[in-house]
């Protein structure tokens, strides 16, 4: 009888212990050894709770990827705003210069040539890669447009301009001295003709 009672008490003790452990009151000790993603995620300042709570490696990776994507996206958005601001400042300055030369009796460069569009990415292929933020492309300006002072019907469109052609075109559009403007347009047309021949 006493042996059965002892067995019974041991069983109840075991059952109670199992319940307590299952409730999470006893936590396993932290692992000892090299840093793992789980410990890095809990200690790194940039870690958010998502990575720590994700159970599988894929889930953790997905959380980290999302954090990186979101962070890069937010930063790129700020850069874009800053670049827009730069373009607006430049356009405002050019508009002031144009207004000053109008009052001196010269023609106005077309407003369509000084846009605030986002600059081209820096990693385009071949020689067409841009090196600065100048809003080079003149949207909506076609051959024969009088606003930018280009000679009518002889100026090719600038959609396939390389770096040099873009620069020439922009200089021609922005030039206020009529003689120089004419020379620059001629230079641009000549350059385009020669590059097409090659």
């Amino acid at each position, binding site marked *: 009888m006493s042996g059965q009672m002892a067995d019974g008490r041991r069983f109840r003790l075991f059952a109670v212990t199992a319940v307590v452990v299952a409730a999470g009151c006893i936590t396993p000790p932290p692992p000892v050894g*090299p*840093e*793992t*993603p789980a410990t*890095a*995620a809990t200690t*790194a*300042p*940039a*870690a958010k709770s998502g*990575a720590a709570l994700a159970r599988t*490696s894929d889930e*953790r*990776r997905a959380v*980290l*990827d999302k*954090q*990186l994507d979101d*962070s*890069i996206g937010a*930063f*790129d958005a*700020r*850069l*874009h705003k*800053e*670049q827009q601001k*730069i*373009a607006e*400042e*430049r356009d405002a*300055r050019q508009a002031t210069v144009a207004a000053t030369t109008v009052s001196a009796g010269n023609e106005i460069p077309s407003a369509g040539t000084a846009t605030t569009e986002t*600059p081209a*990415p*820096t*990693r385009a*292929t*071949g*020689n067409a*890669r*841009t*090196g*600065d*933020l*100048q809003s080079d492309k003149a949207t909506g300006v076609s051959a024969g447009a009088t606003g930018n002072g280009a000679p009518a019907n002889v100026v090719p469109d600038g959609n396939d301009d*390389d*770096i*040099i052609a873009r*620069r020439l075109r922009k200089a021609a559009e922005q*030039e206020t*001295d009529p*003689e*120089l403007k004419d020379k620059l347009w001629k230079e641009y047309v000549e350059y385009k003709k020669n590059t097409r021949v*090659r």
Partner: protein
Amino acid sequence: MGTAVRARVCAATLAVMTAGCVVHETKPLPKINALQASSEIPGDELLDVAVHAFDPGVPAGIAKNEQALNKKRIYPDIRQAESRYVATLLRVTLETSGQWGAVRVCPENVQFVDVSVSGKIIESTGAKLALQVTVKDSTGRVWLNNKQYASAADTGSYKTDAALKARDPFQNVYSEVANDMLTAREAITAQDRRDIRRVTQLEFAKDLVPQAMDGYLGRDQKGLMKVARLPATDDPISIRIDRIRESDSGVVDTVNGYYANFADQMSESYGQWRRASFLEIEKEQRTLNQARTRTYLGAAAVVASVFVPQQCGMYDYNCRRLSTGVRTAAAIGGAASILSGLKKYSDAKTHALALKELSESFQNEVSAQVVDVEGRTLKLTGTAEEQYREWRELLHQMYLEDRNPN
């Protein structure tokens, strides 16, 4: 009688004549242009260039000594502006040559570029520009080592505002630098150019995730950085690094935009200052030359009148009267010439003062613009640095996750 009297007459005549003008003719310089690309360069050989803002070249020993600075025609605030302006003009020259990839002006702390150009302003006035330039690539190869370039102003550029706008008076300097860079590049094989680009990418990657990128770079026998091995094209860490590199390019582009706008903003006033500086320096030089000439000849005439011995016979009164007259005229002419020379020195000082006033006025205008552009650059690069810290940490976690998925 003849020789001594003739000598005195000559000296007297010269002393009188130097009261007139000594004109210094400046001829227009032959124009040097940067060599333009005649064919498309393959994308993987097209090198990106960072032109760092130049060292203003204000000697530390006289930086607080206004008198010494004025004597050397160094105006510190103008030099600060010029350090960015010069870099911008060089950038434009390189970019419009079509020989390079992305060419941007950046502050010194921007690293990880294929080709890096840095330099110092040795002298900069409206009359002369002298620069010292160093060019290196990302492997550590030195293309140009403290090479000096100098040029007088092309006076044709100062003739009208349009001429000044069309071509910088010192464009020859920038064209020479660009052409020398091209020569150095042509001496590098196509394979080495491709390696320069790969080394740049791997150095950037290593800075972000050192553990992941360990072992991809090494050194060759010359001590230059080389590619030891390449990451797999579908390596997840590399793909993420490429994305961050695009953002980094955006930062450099934005900073370059600040500098471009700054140069644009100051160009008109700076052009006027340079033209005025050139004219004042020329006038000052001319009056100094005249002053020296008059003083020397004046002194020579006085000396001649005193020390050339009397050649007339004792009883040759006509000769003695003529000789005395000539000697007196020489002495008077000489003294007048010396006095005239002294006045010219004083005029030269006036021109120097006029230039100083002009420069101070321009300095006041441009120093505020320098503070603005540097403030914006520091703010952006500071923000970028904080961002990179966060991205380094995330990439590190991803690297550990990829290595120990369980």
